[in-house]
């Protein structure tokens, strides 16, 4: 019963932050996506009331863990752009394959240099 109540509070906190963000973004005509503002609202809520962490975790953890399934409808829609992908296949493979490895190496190298002094 308590679990149910806590889950309910978690759902409420996340939906409150989500709709708050969507409302702010739309009503102020901001170029920033509503859900992103929602993220900032939820983060502020967590700092203002740290005891809601357990409630939000109950809802947020399973959502985050299984978020891959939420992309399925969007990814299936990619068939519509198949001709674009085919026409630019070489560029796309280079852009995703090549530069990802390069960026990964460079970031790790810089982080290594910067963080050495402050290892935990």
């Amino acid at each position, binding site marked *: 019963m308590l679990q149910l109540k806590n889950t309910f509070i978690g759902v409420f906190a*996340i*939906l409150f*932050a*989500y709709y708050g963000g*969507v409302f702010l973004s739309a009503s102020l005509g901001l*170029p*920033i*996506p509503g*859900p*992103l503002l*929602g*993220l900032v609202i*939820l983060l502020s809520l967590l700092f203002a009331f740290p005891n809601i*962490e357990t409630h939000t*975790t109950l*809802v*947020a953890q399973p*959502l*985050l863990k299984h*978020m*891959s*399934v*939420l*992309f*399925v*409808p*969007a*990814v*299936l*829609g*990619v068939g*519509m*752009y198949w001709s*674009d992908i085919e026409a*630019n296949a070489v*560029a*796309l493979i*280079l*852009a*995703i*394959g090549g*530069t*990802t*490895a*390069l*960026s*990964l*190496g*460079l*970031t*790790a*190298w*810089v*982080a290594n240099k*910067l*963080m*050495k002094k*402050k*290892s*935990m």
Partner: protein
Amino acid sequence: MIDAILNTFTVSGLIWLSVTLCCYAISVKVNLFFNGHPASHPLVITVSLVGLALLLSNMSVPQYQQSVSLLHWLLGPVTVALALPIFKQWQKLRHYGWRLFASIAVGGVLAPLLAWFTLYALGSPVALQLTMLAKSITTPLAMEATAQIGGIPALAAVFVITTGIVGAVVSNSVFLLCQVKSPEAQGIALGTVAHAVGTAKAIHMGEEVTAMATLGLCINGLFTAFILPLMFSIVL
């Protein structure tokens, strides 16, 4: 939200939601069987299975998307939920301070710029170029950001996942080649450049790597999704 829920409680909504969830459950098992190898990412398998089911049942993709619009709608709340890992790692974030932000900024700026430049130099269409700018951030944020700047959200999802898989697969050899042994640096690079797929890989590399990857994923995602639309609304 109301629309999404109404769509769910129709015959086709219930059927396709169950089909999708079943395919996902199978994919998770397959992924576990391959010891969590990035190339067997549950999304890749789920999409193939559902795609096959759509083909066999003669269902069109837009119809399917409408039936399972609840899943698509949940992308919003899941974006909001990313606040939780940031909150949980706040101590680490304060401990490393600007060093952490500087490292993440290097990856956060380099990865999209290099990818964009490749497409630009090879003369790909503008919509593809714009979509590529969000390829290193986590999928829900990438889809929001590309929609704002005139890219293609569906393609963003594909670019992001592919980037994550490539990053996670090559990470071991890259770290060996660059002689980066510190778990903090490896974690930051994985999370910043290869987002959630990289973070899933980091889980196999230890707790410290995972914590830093989570921070890299969240901070880079947050900043990129803020800065890209702002930059475009000022320039255009």
